[in-house]
Each structure stands twice: as C-alpha cells, then as structure tokens.
C-alpha cells in the first residue's frame, strides 16, 4: 500500500545524510546480500561480475574495480573495517558512527563549504552508513568527475581536519538522529535484545550507541583524533569502484591519490563473550500506546564459520519466509500477527539470528512467544524436502540477478561482503558453501544453535495495557 510504507524495511537503498544503521533498517542490506548469492548455486562458476579485478597497493589499501557497460556512471564505495564492534572503551558506544559524521567536516584543502560546492557541481549522490563491523562511504557520479572525487576522498581520509566547535555541533546532529529513531518501538527492542544477549562483547550495544554515551560526545574531541589515528588507515580500507571503468587505468588513478596514505599499527583487543548457558529474557514497558511485540533471538555462527553460516542463511530463508509454516499460520491463517520480521546478519563474531513479530491481539502475547520459540527449537526434527531446498536456492539465484540493475546496487552488495573479508575470492567461497548446503546440514545447524541456552527473548507492551 503504498504498501511500500508497510514494507519499508525491504526497500530502502542507501542513505544520504550520514546515518547509523539499526538492525531493522539493515534488513535491506541483508536483502542486498541475498542478491549476491551465487548465480550458479549448483556449480563452481564465480558469481562475480566478469572482469572484476583486485589490486593491493603498497600501503595495504585494497582496490577492487568492477567494469560494467553503463555509460558514464561510476559508483564508488570506501569500505572501512571499523564499526561499533571496535568500540571497546567504556562510554564510547556509538563512536564509530559519530566519527562517520565527522568525516564530512572537511580538510584544509577542502573546507566544508568548498567540498559541498565541488560535490554539488558534480551532481554527486553521496552518503555513508555504519554498522557493527563496518563503515561504508558511498557515492555515485558521472565518470568525467572521477579524478576530482578521488582527490577529495583521498584528502579527507588522510588529512581530515575539524575544530572543537564544529565537533561539538556535530555531536548534536547525532543526538537528533537518535531522537528521530526513538519513536519506533523496534529500535528500542533491538537495543535491549543486544544488551541482554551479550555481557562483555561490544555487540552488547547497537551501532547508534547508548543514549548516555551520545549525550557525552561533545566532550570527546581529543578522543576523536585517537579514533581517526587508529582506524582510518589503509590496512582497514577497501576501495571499490563499479561502472564505466577500465581496471588498469582505475588502479593507476587510485594509486595516484591514495598512494601516500600511511599505514598504522592499531588492533582493538576485543573482549571474548563467554558461552551463554541459560535462556535470557527482558521486557519493555512502552510509554505510549502500541500493539505488543515479541522478539526471539539465538546466538548464531560468525561469518568465518563458513559452512554453518551458509546453512543458517538457507535455513532462515526456508523457515521464516512467507512460504514458511509459521508465517502462514500466524499472519495468513490466524491473523494474530501483522508484522513478521526474521533477521540473520553476517557478522565477524557470534551474533544473533531470530524473529520479531507484532501482535494484532494483545492477549496472545504468551502464546505467540511460545510458538515462535517452538518454531526454532523444534525444527531439529523438521522435515525439509529437497524440493524446498531447491526452491530457496533458486530464489537466491534470481534475487542475485535482480540485484544487477545498476552500478550502485552492485557496489553496495559487494561492499558489504568486502567489509567482512576483503577479498573477492572469499565471496565466491561463501556462495560455494551455500550451494553445498544439504538437508542434513540444516538439521544439524538448527540442532546446535536453537537451544534454550542460546535464546534471548524481548517483549514490549504498552504501559497502559
């Protein structure tokens, strides 16, 4: 209905003003990820667009170029392997996202007004987003402006400059961003889900960060330079360009502008999350009137556990699609749920897989919670026919093909995967793993991850009810 309004989480594509990414809005990236799935899931052929090439510069910067036959258009994504996962220090939750904002504060050569002028004259579509494991800066523009854009980008990644007054003002814009999100109950639910499911790992906070930390940002000017010095280094970066390009020329131009970027040495010591040993639960009393929500999450494999992750991805698509039995019962048949939002995201460390639902009948809260839990924990015995498995692989294949409709969408799909593991080969490895998934493997993965001791449940109800 403007159905688009109802399906908003599945349609957004990129953000303009610098933005943090909630799990909810990242539904779209997950869809993007699906788009990437191997076009030849049953074969060994590469899914990557033909002609894609990689080069690592001497300073460690990885450069990926994907030529397409779209006349004149170029999509650029600079992928930094830093996100809220790296926020190990007390009181600094959300800082990676705040820093993303600061990257738009200019340099000596390009003070903000001048940068705006240049980008405006070039008609550039420009923005950035931050999530747990990555910060991605993206632009789309016409090829004739390629050098001007690379010059600007290289300058800000090497020579960022801002003074404390602008820094303090930008901190307020981040608070404004928190405010604009805060009316939505699911934003709060993800915040509580992560905080409940994790004790020490940085995944315990969302990318936006805790409100009390955001309110302290104006005092963090000096720390912001520590952050820049640590992470905005070529070894943390992958530069991806898709469009009307010839790879060798493109590498040369990138080298010309980014060759002088000095590598650093910092590595964050991430706390190791102890294994969860019993089910966890939290409840939110929502101040204003709302229908109730239930969110059920389980600890899920990290990206590096390739076969388990691939099986989990397929499993989630099978069990919680609109053709799955839980959706059909709760939404179509009984109509006691109207929002049905499964989630599973590829992450560097153990994160969460799960489902969020909104109930149309508040009296069924306990019942729906039980049924969602059962849908996960009884799937160990669930029969998955080979036809269903073929269907999901076909869906994945055609979703991928649908994603090849513009340089910008190819670039955003690749950028997400490169942020997890900066090599084109690793993407093929992942999709090869998807193609190998068997029904037995699905049962094994469900059996080992969907156990009560890995479960976290968050419920939300209106206070007045």
């Amino acid at each position, binding site marked *: 209905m403007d159905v688009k309004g109802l399906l908003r989480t599945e349609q957004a594509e990129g953000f303009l003003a610098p933005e943090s990414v909630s799990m909810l809005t990242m539904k779209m990236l997950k869809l993007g990820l699906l788009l990437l799935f191997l076009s030849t899931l049953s074969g060994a052929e590469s899914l990557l667009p033909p002609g894609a090439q990689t080069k690592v510069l001497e300073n460690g910067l990885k450069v990926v170029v994907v030529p397409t036959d779209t006349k004149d258009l170029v999509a650029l994504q600079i992928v930094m392997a830093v996100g809220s996962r790296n926020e190990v220090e007390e009181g600094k939750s959300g800082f990676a996202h705040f820093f993303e904002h600061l990257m738009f504060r200019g340099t000596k050569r390009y003070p903000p007004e001048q940068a705006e002028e240049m980008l405006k004259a070039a008609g550039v579509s420009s923005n950035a987003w931050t999530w747990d494991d990555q910060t991605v800066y993206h632009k789309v523009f016409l090829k004739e402006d390629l050098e001007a854009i690379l010059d600007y980008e290289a300058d800000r990644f090497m020579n960022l400059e801002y003074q404390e007054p602008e820094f*303090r*003002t930008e901190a307020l814009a981040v608070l404004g961003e928190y405010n604009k999100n805060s009316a939505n109950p699911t934003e709060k639910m993800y915040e509580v889900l992560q905080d409940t499911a994790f004790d020490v790992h940085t995944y315990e906070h969302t990318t936006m960060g805790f409100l009390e930390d955001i309110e302290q940002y104006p005092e963090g000017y000096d720390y912001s330079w520590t952050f820049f010095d640590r992470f905005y280094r070529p070894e943390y970066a992958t530069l991806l360009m898709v469009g009307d390009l010839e790879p060798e020329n493109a590498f040369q131009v990138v080298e010309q502008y980014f060759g002088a970027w000095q590598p650093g040495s910092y590595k964050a010591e991430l706390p190791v999350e102890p294994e969860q040993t019993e089910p966890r639960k939290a409840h939110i009393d929502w101040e204003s009137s709302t229908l109730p929500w239930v969110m059920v999450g389980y600890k899920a494999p990290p990206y590096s556990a390739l076969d388990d992750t691939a099986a989990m991805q397929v499993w989630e698509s099978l069990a919680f699609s609109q053709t799955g039995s839980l959706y059909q019962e709760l939404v179509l048949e009984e109509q006691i749920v109207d929002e049905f939002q499964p989630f599973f995201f590829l992450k560097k460390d153990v994160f969460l897989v799960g489902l969020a639902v909104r109930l149309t009948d508040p009296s069924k809260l306990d019942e729906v919670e039980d049924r969602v839990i059962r849908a996960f924990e009884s799937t160990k015995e669930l029969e998955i026919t080979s036809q269903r498995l073929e269907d999901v692989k076909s869906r994945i294949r*055609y979703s991928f093909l649908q994603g090849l409709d*513009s340089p910008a969408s190819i670039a955003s799909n690749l950028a997400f995967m490169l942020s997890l593991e900066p090599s084109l080969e690793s993407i093929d490895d992942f999709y090869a793993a998807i193609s190998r998934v068997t029904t037995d493997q699905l049962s094994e993965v469900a059996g080992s991850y969907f156990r009560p001791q890995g479960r976290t449940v968050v419920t939300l109800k209106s206070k007045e009810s």
Partner: protein
Amino acid sequence: MKFAKLILLLLTLQLAGAQELLTLPGDSPLIDVRVQFEVGSIDDPEGKEGLTCLTALSLSEAGTEKKSYQDLLATFYPWAVSVDTTVGKEMVTFSATVHRDHLDEFKEVFTEMLTEPTFSQKDLDRLREKARNYLTQDLRVNNDEELGKETLYLQIYPRIHPYGHHNFGTVSGLEAVTTDDLRTHYRSYFRPERMTIGLAGGYPQEFPKELAAGLSVGLASAVELPSRPSISQPASPDGRRFTIVEKDTRSVAMSLGFPIEVNRSHPDWAALFLFRSFFGEHRSSTSHLYQRLREARGLNYGDYAYIEYFPNGMYLTQPEPNYPRSQQIFQIWIRPVQPETALFTLRATFFELEKVLREGLTEQQFEATRSYLKKNAPLLVASGSRELGYALDSKFYGSDPFVERLRNDLDKLTVDEVNRALRKHLQADNIEIVLVSKDATQLREELTAQRPSPMEYNSPKPQEILEEDNVIQSYPLKLGEIRIVPVNELFR
C-alpha cells in the same frame, strides 16, 4: 545486464480495448512490469475511505478464484518475484521485476491475479488489519516524522476535498468496507479503459500484446464508467495555522506547507524544482536550510523542502515514482528537534524562508543548483524499473521523458525566472504548521507568550551566527489559530 539499455525507445500505443501500452525495450534479461489504473483514494466513496487501497491489495496480496494467496507466494518464491502496490490519490500501480526465464509463467499468474480475484472475507480481514495498523501503529506510534507530514496534508485538504483522507483511508472507512464493496469497486474502476501497461527490458516482441490482450479480456466490464471527482486547488490557509499533535515523544517533529498550483505540467515547474533543490534538496547536506539549521547550529538531523508528495522520505534517498497528483503542496520538513529548541528552530525556519523570498537566489546559487540537477537527473532513473515509473508519470502530466524534459527546461531557465516563480507561487504568511510534541499545552503557551527564544550552544559560534540568532530569537511568529489534536484522533 539490465542497465545496459542501449536502445531507449519510448512507444505509446493505443490498443484495442482502449488501454495504453508504454514500452522501453532493451536487452536486459530482467523485465520490469508496471500496470497502472486510473483510480486512487479520490475515488473512495464517502464512509468507505480506504476502499481503493483494499481493492488494490486484494489483487496483489490475496488469493484468486483458482489459487490461494499461499499458493501464489509459493509460485513466486523460487523466482524471487513479488507484486508491489502503490496506492496514490489518483492512480494505483502494480509493479514487478521478473527474469526472462519466468516471464511466460509470470504473465499467466499475474493476469490471473488482476482478472480473477476472489475477494474472500479472510483476505479482506487481513488486509484491513494491515491498512488500519499502518494508520494506527506505523503512523501514530512509530514515526513522528511521517505522522507530521501526513497530518500536514490533512490540514491543507479539508475532509470534503477528494484529497481529504490518507491514501490508505480512515480507520472507520476501512472498517465499513465489505467484500461486496470490493467487487463493485473493482468492476467499476479496474478495467481496460483505465489501464496503462508499462514494460521495460528484453521481453520477446510479442509479449506486450499478449499481456495486454489477456488483461483486457479479463478486465472487460459492462458496468457504466464512473465519473471521477474534480480536484480543485484548496483555499490557502488563513494566516499561520498551527496544529500540535500530542503524543508521548522525546522530541518535536515539524512539517510546514501550503497548496501550490504548480505540478509537473505547469510551465513554472522546473523553476520551483530548482528552488526547492537549492533551499532543501532531499537528504542532501548541500542545501541551504540544512546548512543553516543543522550544519551551523546542530539543531537536528536534517531539513528539507518539497514541491511534490514524497512519502517515506526517511527510508529513501530518491522519490518513488507513481504518486502523480494534479494538486501539490510546497512543504518544509524539519527533522525532530530537542523540545527546548523548538521555538527557535521554528523562528529560524521562517527567517530563512522569508529571507529567500525577499532576496531570491543569487546568480551563483542558481548556477550551482542547475549544474547539480543536470548531472544528478540521470541518477534518478538509473534502473529500468525507475525509468519506467518516471515514464508513466510523464504520461500522466503530459510531459516529455523526465531527464530530457528537466535538462531542456533547465537550459532555458534564468535566475530571474526562478526568483519570479518563487515569489509568484510561494509565500510565508498563509501556511499550515504541524508540530508533533509531548506537552502540547506547554508548547502552545510558549508560542502564544511570544517571548524571545535565545539559543544556548555547547561551543563558541562565529559572530555572524550570533548576530543572526539575535534577530531570530525574537523573530515574529505571526501566530494564527493554534489547535491541539491528541494523536489518537488522527486518521479516524
């Protein structure tokens, strides 16, 4: 690949059965299909507001005579296909992107969906709940910004105006719709005489005619063609009219606007399009309001201006096509601000609007914005699906293809023409202002007290800003009527 559309050929054919066909043939294996009907929320009968929305959804998200909705989902699943529905004021559009491998099968199923809907009570109950919860949950509860914008439209278009309710209807109107209503509405409005079929991509040569033939046979209706309401420009608000929507929320969301006579078919459209880009390009840090309110003062997350309806702006970087409207409004969207700075922000907004109306754009501002728009325009239609959507909109407005038209108009435009157009069509005195806020009574008192609202910053500001703030903090609000509306009274 889809975007490798080398041949850009736009054909509009008048076929037997009176429906129109609009094609953008290319060599992409992905085929974009958009089928549009001349029906919208303006055609909802009184007391059944939402009937068009529910009828449209009954075609795209419900069962047919032969297949349940579950069967349809199962058929589409391996193809990764879904049929999306856009319900606007004057048009309903169904859209899908299908790989060539499934095109023939898709044609059969899609034709069946549009021509043999079953209108079961069970599907209606589900779709009604979905539409109602959009109004009562997604707007009233979850999203103060979209709430503010939709409320602004309802203040500008009175209930008796054909635009006087949300595209999805009202809570009571949705409640009143029966399956018989759906059947009648469907037979009256979803018919070949009022259909345009749009196709883009590498479809087989015969495909357009085959799809058109199947749809026009299946949709043929003997019912008399209903007349459509005439859509007049509503009266301008009398003075500055404030509506404070009261709900529990952390911050204050703001939307301001008034009706304009300019739509895409108006000769001044390009001039106003350029002005709104300069003043408040959507989600762009280069625009004027954003620079003054967010960049210089940190008041919020962003500040934008529009001359066309643009729903779901917080999730989109570009407007979705296929919400064509004969009537549009000029609108300013101020993203949520801290309650203590609400008054100052409002004054700053009026200060900037009045200033630009008084001074106009400079030659340099004009040239910079024109350059931006000329280069940015192709990015708006970078996929086949978007290009097709824009082509349908151009057909509605009777204008040339979007990029070509915009570039041609921009080439001819001068700064004087832009300044003349903005003074002719825009003003700051008769305007609706919607504020979504927690303590409405207190906010009303602050407004009516007319006290200065000085800013306190967390960092030193340039002298130029402080001097401007001195003016803004006491800037006349020119208050008109102020109404308080509890959020639960909206969309009823």
